[in-house]
C-alpha cells in the first residue's frame, strides 16, 4: 500500500483537519476566537446540520479575518519564501540557518540543545511556516510565532508529564477509510471497565481511575493504546490479513465479515508478477476455481477465463468484466485474422486496452449470491476491476519501469540436418546444411514497460493520473504488441459534509498489434508455425544469392519467406470512462448515478504480397474495421441503517446499457508488387471485385431493475437477498425479461459467546447461498427473421454476360421464443482465521446447474440454417474450492506468507434431447470436418470422442478401435496455485506456482505437423516420432494417439526485490529494484510447446475444449525493473 504508517497515523485525520486552525494559531489576535469556535465545534458535533451552519459561518469569518490578517502579516512579518538545503544537521544548526534566511529569531530551551539527532531538509521557494511544520512534525516540536520571535518546545510525550487526570473519556473510532467503526471494544487498561462504540463509531466511558490509558480492540484490527481524553479521534488499522477489510461487490462494497457469497478479492500486492499484457492475467493461479488459459503465447492473445467450469456448451463462457462499475461487453473490439490466406485467427484480448498497473484490486464473484446482482450476465461469474485512486494524503509520484527478455520456454526436438540425412537420404536437399527452423523463426524478444503515475488525496477528494507505454516483442520475429495508455481518476466532494461526491474515471489507450501468418484453422496449405515445424532441416534459409531460399512447390514453404510476404497490423483505440455521482439525500440514504461510455475503433490491415506458395499467391489485401460505442446509465439508491444490533443495507436501482457495434470488411487481390503496401492505397490491387465486401451493424440493449438487502444481526447472523430483472433485446418478444433471485445466509460463529474468548479461532464463518443467474451471450437478431443481400448468394439471372443479380436470403432460422440461459447455483462455504492470521482460509462447495441452455441446433427442416434455441437438459458443474494461507513468520525483520489454493471440478451434461453435439474442429491435411469434442448426456462437457489407437502393427501401421470412444478429460479435475511472499528486512522474495491435473489436450499440432509420412514429403519430424514405431506409410487418422495429458506444474513467477533505505533522502519515499522470472519451468508430459493453451476450434457456435493447434509457443521471461516513489 502506498501510505506509510507513521507515528501520527492514528490521529492524522484530526491533525490535518485542524491544519487551517493551526495556521491561524500563528497569529495571536485570533487565539481567543479560535478557542471559542473550537469549543462550539465539538459541542455541536452531533448535529450535522448545525455543523454545516457553523462551518459556513466559520468560513465566512475566516475569509474576512484572513484578509485583514494577510494584510497585517505582510506589513509586520516576513513574507518572502526560503530556499533551504541542509543535510545531517542538528536542530540548533537548522535554526541558525533559518535565522540567516529570514527575519525570525528563535527561542528554545535546554531540551532542544540536548537533542543530538540530525535532520536533512531541502526546500525550494517555500514558506517559512511550511518548513517549520515539517521540522516540527519530524522532530516532535511545537512552536509559536510571536511577532518575529519563534518559540520552540519539545512536544510533550504522553505520560511524560503528569497531566491532569481525566474522569471520563469520549470520542470516535474510525476505520482505515475514515468510516465510523461500530462495535469496537474499549477497555480502561488494567481494569474490566469498558464499552463498545455505537453505530456512528462514538463512545464515552466513565473511568474507574485504574489508569489513564484506553485499549481499543476490534476483530481484524490492530489493538491500540491511547491516553484517555475527552475528545479522542482514533483511527484503527486492519491487521494484514484483514478480515474486516472492505471488499468490492457489485454496486458497492461490504466489509469482509459481512460477506455471505463466495467471492475473492486480489489486490495489487498479490497480482501475478511479470509481463502482464491484460488484467485477466493478473489473476492467474490466484483464485481457486478461476482458470485463466491463454489461447496462445502471442503477446496480447485472447484469454479464456473460466469460473467454476464450463456452464455453457456454446461459445460464451467468459465472465462479465466490470471496470469501475461499468460492465463491459464481451465482444471483440478488434477484428480477428481474415479468413483466406493462412486461415482465420482469433481476435486479441479485448481487455488489452487496460493498463494492469492502473488496477488496484480485482474481485471475483463466483457464486450466485455474489453474481446475481448482475442478472442475465452473471452466470459465468463476474470480475470486478477497480482502478487506483489517490489515497496518499500527500503528493505521490510513482515511476515503474522494467525491461525483459523472453525466449521460447521449450523447443521441440526436431531432427537436425545430419539426423535427417541419416534417416531420409532421398529427401535430403543439402547433406551439409542443418537449419534449425525454430531458431530461425523464434528470437529473444525484448519487452519494455514504463509507467508513470501521480496522485494525491485530500480530506474531500483525490486524484490519480497515469500514463504508460508497453512494447512487447513476440518471440516470433516481426510479431509485436504495443500499448500507450493514459488514465485519470478524480474524486471530489461537495456541499455540506461531503453530501455530493463526484467521481470521474477515464482511460484511453491505443494498442498496436503486428501479426504473423499464424492461424487457428489453416487449411491444407498450412500456416507459419506448422511450416516451421515441418520445414526440412537440410534446406537453407537463404540461397547462394542471399535471397530467401525458395522451397518451391512441395506444399512446404520457407517459413522465413512466409514472414516476408505477410504484413499485418491492427490498431485499436479504446476509451472507457464513467462519471459517478453520489448524493446523500438523508443520513444513510444515498442516491447514485453512474454514466459510462466505452468507445473503440479498430482497423486491421492484412496483406499477402504475391508469392510462390499456394497461400494467396497472386497477393491479397484485406481491411477490417470495427467500431463500438457502448454506454451505461445507472441510477440507484442505497440505504444504510445501523441500530444496536441491527445493521441493514439496502440497494435499489435501474440500469440501462446499450451496445452499438459495427464493422466492415473489404479486400482486393492481384497485388502487383511489393513496393507499395495496399494498406496505404488498396487501388494497387488489380482485382477489386474478387473479395466480397461485407459489413455489419448491431445494437443490443439491456434494461434492468435490481435490488439487494444485506442484513446483519449483532454482527453474527447475516442475510443477503438480491433480485434483478433483466431485459434484453436479444430475447424473443415473449420473453423479454428474466428474473434472477438470490439468497444467502452467513453465521459469524467466532462472534458467538462460546468462541469469542477463544484465542485459537479469530474468525470462523459459515456461509450458504442459493441463487439464479443468467446468460444472454448469444448473437444479436437470432429471434428475428430477416433477409440479407449479398453478391455471394447472387446469380447470373440474365446470363453470364450480364451482371450478377445479388441474392436475398433469409439470414437465419429465427426463434421468437428465445430466452436467457439459467444457472442455478448453491454454495456452502466456510471462512476461518486461526491464531490471529497465522492460518486462514476458506472452503467452498458449489453445485451449478445450467438449464434452458442456449444452443445452436438444427432447425426442423425445411429451414434456412441451424437455430438458436433453449434446450431441455442440464449442464452440471460441481466442485470444491479451497484456499489456505498463513503468516508463517511475522517478525519485524522477517515476514513470510504462503497461500495455497485449489479447486476440483466435476462436469456432466444431462438430459439433452439431442443425441450428440460435436465441436473441436481438427486442422491438418485430410482431416477437414473432423471433430474431437462431444457433448453427450452422461459425459463431461466437451469430452473427447475419438478412435482409440491400439498401437502399431509390425509394419508400423496404426491399429484402431472400430468405434470411437469417449474420454472425459477436456477440463482439468483439479487446478491449483501456490503463492509465497517472503521478506527479510529490505529484501523480498516471492514466487507463484500454478498447475492442473486430470486434463488432456488434443495435440492437433502434432497431428498436422509431426507424423512419419512427413519424411516421404520432404518434411521434418521430432526424434520422438522417429522412434515411435510409426511407418512412413501410416495413414493419418484422428485418434486418441494425439490426446496427451496436459497436467502440469509451473513456476509461474519468481520475484526478487530490494527496497533501498530511503529514510535519509527526505524527498524519496521508495526506491525498489526488482528482478522477475516468469514461466521459469514447467513440469509436464505434454509433448507440445505448452500444456496450458486452448486453441479456439469451435464448430457451429459450440465451444471446443482442450485443443492445441499451431499454438504460438509459450515463452519464459526475465525482467529487471525499478519502482520509484516520491
Amino acid at each position, binding site marked *: 500500500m502506498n501510505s506509510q504508517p507513521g507515528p501520527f497515523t492514528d490521529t492524522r485525520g484530526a491533525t490535518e483537519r485542524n491544519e487551517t486552525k493551526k495556521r491561524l494559531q500563528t497569529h495571536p489576535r485570533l487565539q481567543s476566537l479560535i478557542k471559542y469556535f473550537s469549543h462550539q465545534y465539538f459541542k455541536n458535533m452531533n448535529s450535522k446540520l448545525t455543523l454545516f451552519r457553523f462551518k459556513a459561518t466559520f468560513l465566512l469569518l475566516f475569509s474576512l479575518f484572513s484578509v485583514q490578517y494577510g494584510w497585517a502579516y505582510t506589513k509586520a512579518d516576513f513574507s518572502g519564501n526560503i530556499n533551504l538545503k541542509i543535510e545531517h544537521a542538528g536542530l540548533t544548526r537548522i535554526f541558525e540557518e533559518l535565522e540567516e534566511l529570514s527575519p525570525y529569531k528563535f527561542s528554545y530551551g535546554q531540551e532542544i540543545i540536548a537533542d543530538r539527532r540530525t535532520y536533512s531538509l531541502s526546500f525550494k521557494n517555500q514558506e517559512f511556516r511550511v518548513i517549520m511544520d515539517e521540522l516540527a512534525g519530524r522532530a516532535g516540536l511545537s512552536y509559536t510565532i510571536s511577532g518575529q520571535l519563534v518559540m520552540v518546545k519539545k512536544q510533550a510525550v504522553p505520560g511524560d508529564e503528569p497531566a491532569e487526570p481525566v474522569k471520563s473519556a469520549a470520542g470516535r473510532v474510525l476505520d482505515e477509510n475514515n468510516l465510523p467503526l461500530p462495535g469496537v471494544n474499549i477497555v480502561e487498561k488494567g481494569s474490566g471497565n469498558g464499552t463498545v462504540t455505537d453505530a456512528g463509531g462514538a463512545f464515552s466511558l466513565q473511568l474507574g481511575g485504574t489508569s489513564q490509558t484506553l485499549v481499543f480492540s476490534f476483530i481484524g484490527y490492530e489493538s491500540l493504546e491511547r491516553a484517555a481524553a475527552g475528545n479522542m479521534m482514533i483511527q484503527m488499522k486492519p491487521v494484514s490479513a484483514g478480515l474486516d477489510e472492505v471488499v468490492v461487490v457489485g454496486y458497492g462494497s461490504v466489509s469482509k465479515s459481512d460477506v455471505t457469497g463466495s467471492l475473492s478479492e486480489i489486490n495489487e500486492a498479490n497480482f501475478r508478477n511479470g509481463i502482464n499484457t491484460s488484467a485477466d492475467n493478473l489473476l492467474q493461479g490466484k483464485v481457486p476455481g478461476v482458470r485463466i488459459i491463454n489461447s496462445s503465447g502471442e503477446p496480447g492473445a485472447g484469454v479464456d477465463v473460466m469460473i467454476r467450469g464450463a456452464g455453457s456448451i456454446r461459445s460464451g463462457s467468459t465472465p462479465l468484466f466490470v471496470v469501475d462499475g461499468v460492465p463491459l461487453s464481451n465482444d471483440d473490439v478488434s477484428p480477428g485474422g481474415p479468413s483466406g490466406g493462412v486461415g482465420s485467427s482469433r481476435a486479441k484480448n479485448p481487455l488489452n486496452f487496460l493498463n494492469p498497473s492502473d488496477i488496484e484490486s480485482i474481485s471475483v464473484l463466483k457464486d450466485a449470491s455474489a453474481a446475481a446482482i448482475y442478472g442475465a450476465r452473471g452466470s459465468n461469474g463476474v470480475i470486478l476491476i477497480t482502478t487506483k485512486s489517490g489515497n496518499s494524503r500527500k503528493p505521490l509520484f510513482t515511476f515503474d519501469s522494467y525491461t525483459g527478455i523472453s525466449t521460447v520456454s521449450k523447443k521441440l526436438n526436431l531432427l537436425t540436418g545430419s539426423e535427417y540425412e541419416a534417416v531420409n537420404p532421398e529427401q535430403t536437399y543439402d547433406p551439409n546444411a542443418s537449419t534449425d527452423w525454430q531458431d530461425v523463426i523464434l528470437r529473444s524478444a525484448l519487452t519494455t514497460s514504463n509507467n508513470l503515475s501521480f496522485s494525491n488525496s485530500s480530506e474531500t477528494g483525490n486524484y490519480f493520473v497515469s500514463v504508460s507505454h508497453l512494447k512487447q516483442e513476440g518471440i516470433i520475429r516481426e510479431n509485436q504488441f504495443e500499448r500507450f495508455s493514459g488514465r485519470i481518476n478524480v474524486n471530489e466532494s461537495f456541499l455540506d459534509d461531503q453530501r455530493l461526491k463526484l467521481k470521474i474515471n477515464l482511460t484511453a489507450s491505443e494498442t498496436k498489434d503486428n501479426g504473423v501468418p499464424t492461424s487457428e484453422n489453416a487449411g491444407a496449405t498450412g500456416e507459419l508455425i506448422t511450416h516451421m515445424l515441418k520445414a526440412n532441416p537440410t534446406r537453407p534459409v537463404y540461397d547462394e544469392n542471399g535471397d530467401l531460399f525458395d522451397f518451391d512447390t512441395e506444399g512446404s514453404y520457407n517459413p522465413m519467406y512466409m514472414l516476408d510476404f505477410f504484413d499485418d497490423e491492427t490498431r485499436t483505440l479504446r476509451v472507457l470512462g464513467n462519471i459517478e455521482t453520489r448524493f446523500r439525500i438523508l443520513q444513510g440514504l444515498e442516491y447514485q448515478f453512474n454514466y459510462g461510455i466505452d468507445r473503440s475503433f479498430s482497423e486491421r490491415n492484412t496483406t499477402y504480397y504475391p508469392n510462390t506458395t499456394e497461400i494467396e499467391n497472386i497477393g491479397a489485401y484485406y481491411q477490417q474495421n470495427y467500431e463500438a460505442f457502448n454506454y451505461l446509465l445507472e441510477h440507484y439508491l442505497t440505504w444504510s441503517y445501523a441500530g444496536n444490533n441491527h445493521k441493514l443495507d439496502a440497494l435499489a436501482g435501474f440500469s440501462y446499457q446499450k451496445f452499438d457495434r459495427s464493422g466492415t470488411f473489404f479486400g482486393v487481390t492481384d497485388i502487383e508488387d511489393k513496393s507499395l503496401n495496399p494498406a496505404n492505397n488498396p487501388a494497387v490491387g488489380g482485382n477489386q471485385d474478387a473479395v466480397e465486401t461485407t459489413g455489419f451493424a448491431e445494437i443490443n440493449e439491456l434494461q434492468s431493475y435490481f435490488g439487494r438487502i444485506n442484513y446483519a444481526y449483532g454482527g453474527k447472523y447475516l442475510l443477503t437477498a438480491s433480485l434483478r430483472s433483466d431485459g434484453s433485446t436479444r430475447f424473443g418478444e415473449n420473453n423479454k425479461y428474466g428474473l434472477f433471485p438470490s439468497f444467502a445466509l452467513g453465521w459469524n460463529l467466532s462472534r458467538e459467546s462460546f468462541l469469542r474468548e477463544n484465542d485459537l479461532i479469530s474468525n470462523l464463518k459459515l456461509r450458504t447461498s442459493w441463487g439464479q443467474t443468467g446468460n444472454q451471450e448469444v448473437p444479436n437478431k437470432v429471434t428475428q427473421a430477416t*433477409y440479407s443481400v449479398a453478391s455471394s448468394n447472387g446469380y447470373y439471372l440474365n446470363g453470364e454476360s450480364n451482371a450478377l443479380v445479388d441474392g436475398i436470403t433469409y439470414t437465419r432460422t429465427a426463434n421468437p421464443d428465445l430466452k436467457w440461459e439459467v444457472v442455478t447455483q448453491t454454495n456452502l462455504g466456510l471462512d476461518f482465521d486461526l491464531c490471529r492470521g497465522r492460518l486462514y482460509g476458506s472452503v467452498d462447495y458449489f453445485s451449478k446447474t445450467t438449464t434452458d441452455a442456449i444452443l445452436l441446433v438444427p432447425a426442423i427442416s425445411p429451414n434456412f440454417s441451424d437455430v438458436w434455441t433453449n434446450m431441455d437438459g442440464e449442464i452440471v458443474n460441481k466442485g470444491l474450492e479451497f484456499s489456505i494461507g498463513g503468516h508463517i513468520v511475522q517478525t519485524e525483520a522477517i515476514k513470510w506468507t504462503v497461500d495455497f489454493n485449489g479447486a476440483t471440478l466435476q462436469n456432466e451434461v444431462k438430459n439433452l434431447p439431442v443425441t450428440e453435439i460435436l465441436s473441436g474442429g481438427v486442422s491438418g491435411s485430410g482431416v477437414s470436418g*473432423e471433430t474431437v469434442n462431444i457433448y453427450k448426456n452422461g459425459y463431461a462437457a466437451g469430452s473427447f470422442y475419438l478412435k482409440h489407437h491400439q498401437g502399431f502393427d509390425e509394419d508400423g501401421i496404426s491399429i484402431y478401435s472400430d468405434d470411437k470412444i469417449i474420454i472425459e478429460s477436456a477440463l482439468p479435475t483439479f487446478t491449483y496455485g501456490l503463492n509465497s511472499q517472503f521478506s527479510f528486512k529490505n529484501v523480498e522474495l516471492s514466487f507463484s506456482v500454478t498447475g492442473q491435473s486430470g486434463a488432456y489436450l488434443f495435440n492437433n499440432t502434432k497431428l498436422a505437423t509431426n507424423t512419419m509420412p512427413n519424411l516421404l514429403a520432404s518434411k521434418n519430424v521430432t526424434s520422438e516420432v522417429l522412434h515411435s514405431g510409426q511407418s512412413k506409410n501410416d495413414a493419418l487418422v484422428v485418434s486418441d494417439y494425439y490426446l496427451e495429458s496436459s497436467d502440469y506444474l509451473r513456476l509461474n513467477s519468481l520475484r526478487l526485490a530490494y527496497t533501498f533505505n530511503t529514510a535519509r533522502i527526505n524527498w524519496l519515499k521508495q526506491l525498489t529494484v526488482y528482478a522477475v522470472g516468469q514461466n521459469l519451468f514447467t513440469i509436464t508430459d505434454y509433448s507440445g510447446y505448452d500444456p496450458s493453451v486452448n486453441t479456439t476450434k469451435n464448430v457451429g457456435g459450440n465451444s471446443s475444449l482442450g485443443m492445441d493447434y499451431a499454438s504460438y509457443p509459450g515463452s519464459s521471461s526475465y525482467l529487471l525493473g525499478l519502482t520509484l516513489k516520491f
Partner: protein
Amino acid sequence: MLNQNLFRINTFLALTALFLALGSCTDLKEQVIDEIISEDISSVEGAEASLLSATYAKCEDLFANYGGTWCLQQMSTDETVLPVRGEDWSDGGKWRAIHEFTWNASSVKVEDNWNTLNSAIAQAASTVDVIKNSTVENHELYMAEARAMWVLYTFNLVDLFGQVPYRDPMNLSYSEAPEILTAERAIRICIDVLLEVIPNLAEIGSNGTHCGRFTKEAAYALLAKIYLNKAVYEDRYNASSAFGFTSNACMDSVILYTDKLISSPHFELEDDYFEIFGVDNSNNPELIFAYIQSATGANTGRNDFTYLSMGRNQKANPDNNRGSNATCTTPDYYATWDANRDDPRFHKHTLKNGGEPFRNDGADYSLPYDGIFHFNRGFQEGQQYGPIITGGAFEMDPANAARVLVQKLYTEKTPTLAMDFTRELNFDDPAIAAFSQNQINRGVRVFKQEYDAENTRNTSGVDISVFRLGGIYTMRAEAKFRKNDVSGALADINKLRTSRWSIDAGGNKYYGESIPSLDEETLYNEISYELYWEGERRQEMIRFGTFDKSYSAKPETDPYFRVFPIPQSELDANKDFVQNEGY
C-alpha cells in the same frame, strides 16, 4: 428549518421522479439496421429478382460442389471414388464412407446434403411466399420459376432420402410442424406443381431467359426424369430390383417430354463433345438447364469436378493452380470402356496449347504457351507429363522461350514418386478405400469438365449442366427400351455415338461409330458413356439393378442402401420422423 426540510423533500421527490422517468427508457424492441426485416421485404427494389437469384444460387452447393448431391450420386457408385490418399482426404472417413456403404444417420455427408437440400427448398418456398403477393412485372414468371425450383430441390430430396418434410410454399408457415410426406406423395406433388407452372414458365430464350433459368423446357426435362425414376420411388426396396417401370404409363410420359425436347428447335447435339463441359460452354446448344458460373464475377463459381481428380503437381499455370489428387474412377467401371476406347467421349487430346496436340506420353518436349497450360480431357491413365514450376514460373524450353517444357511429373507430396495413374486401385484392405502415402497416385482420373485456370484454382466459368440434350436422348432410349422398342432405343444411342468427335494424339479429329444391337447391359453402359461424372450414376445403377452388387471397396449390400438415412440431427429436432427402413 422549514425551508430546509422542504428542500430535502423536494430534492427527494425530484430525484425519485427522475429515477422513475428514466426507469423505463426502452421497450427492448430489437432494432435491426444491417438486414432487411421480413415485413419490409416487399418494399425493397428488385426484391423478387434477388430472391429468385438466391433460389438459383442454391444450385451451387448441390450441383457444382463435389460435396453436394454429386457426392452422394457419384461417390456411392462404381464410377467415382474419393479414397484416403496418404495424409490427404481422410476427413474423418466421410468420403470413403459413401463409397464403402458404411454411411449411417450420423454421417457427415448425409447430414450435409440433407441440410443443403432443405435450405434450398426453404429458400425457394420463401421466394414463392414473397412473390405471390407481388405485382411487379414478370412476377408470374418469377413465381413459376421459384415453384419449379422448389420441385427440383424437392425431387432431389425424394430421390436421396425418400421422405420429405413438407411446407406448402403457397401457404407457408414456419411456426407449424411440417407434414412428413412419403416419396410417392411427394412425387405426386412435384408433378402437379410442375404441370401447374408450365403455362407460366418462359419458353427458353423468351422473356430474357436462357439455359440458366428454369423454363418450360427445363420442366419437360425434369418431368421426364421424374417419370423415368418414379417406379423406383414407389417400390424402393424391391429385393430383385424388378421395378414396375412400365406401369402407369410412366415410360410414355418420359417419351412424351423427351420428344418435345429432342424436336425443339432450341437444342441440338454438340459434336465437339467435351466442349459441352468447356470453359466456353455458355449457351451451348445442348444445355437445357444449367447452373451458370463465372470465374470473374462476384460469384466466382467452382472448378471442383476436374481439379479434384487432377494430381497436385498437374499445374495449369505457374500461380500454383494445382489439382487436389482426390477422385478417380474404379477399375470395375473403367473396364466397361475396354471395348469402347475409340468412343470420342472417352478421351480428347487437347489442341489448346497453341494448336499442337498434347500427347502426354513423354514424346512432347515442349508446347506453345500463352499463360495457361491445357490438359487433355476425359479419362487419364498412366504416367503424366506437364510443366514444372521453378521460382514462380514454368520451366521454359531453353531453345524457345514461348514454349513450355513438358516433363515427367512426380508426386508433390512424395517427390520421388512418379505420377502414374494406375488402372488398378489395389486397396491394402479391400473393404477400405484408403491408400498409404506411397500409393497416392492410384486410380484413373477423369477430366471431363475443363479446368478453368484463368483465375484462381477454385473459380470457374464452366456452366454446370443439370439437363442437357444428350441426357434427354438417353432417357428416351431407356424408355423405349423398357417399352420393348429396342430399335428405337438403339437409334437414339447411335445418334449420340455418331454425333460426337474427338482429337487423337496426332491431332486428328475422329467420330464415333454406331453399334449394331442393344441389350440391357449395353444400354446401361451406353447411358454412362454419355453421362459419366455428371451426377447421374446412382440413379442409373438403381434402375438397372447394379447398385446392390459389390464393386471396388463396396460389398454386396441390402436394398435399403438405395435410400440414405434421415440424419440423426433431424430425428433429434423433429420427432415426427420415422427413420428409413434398415437404418
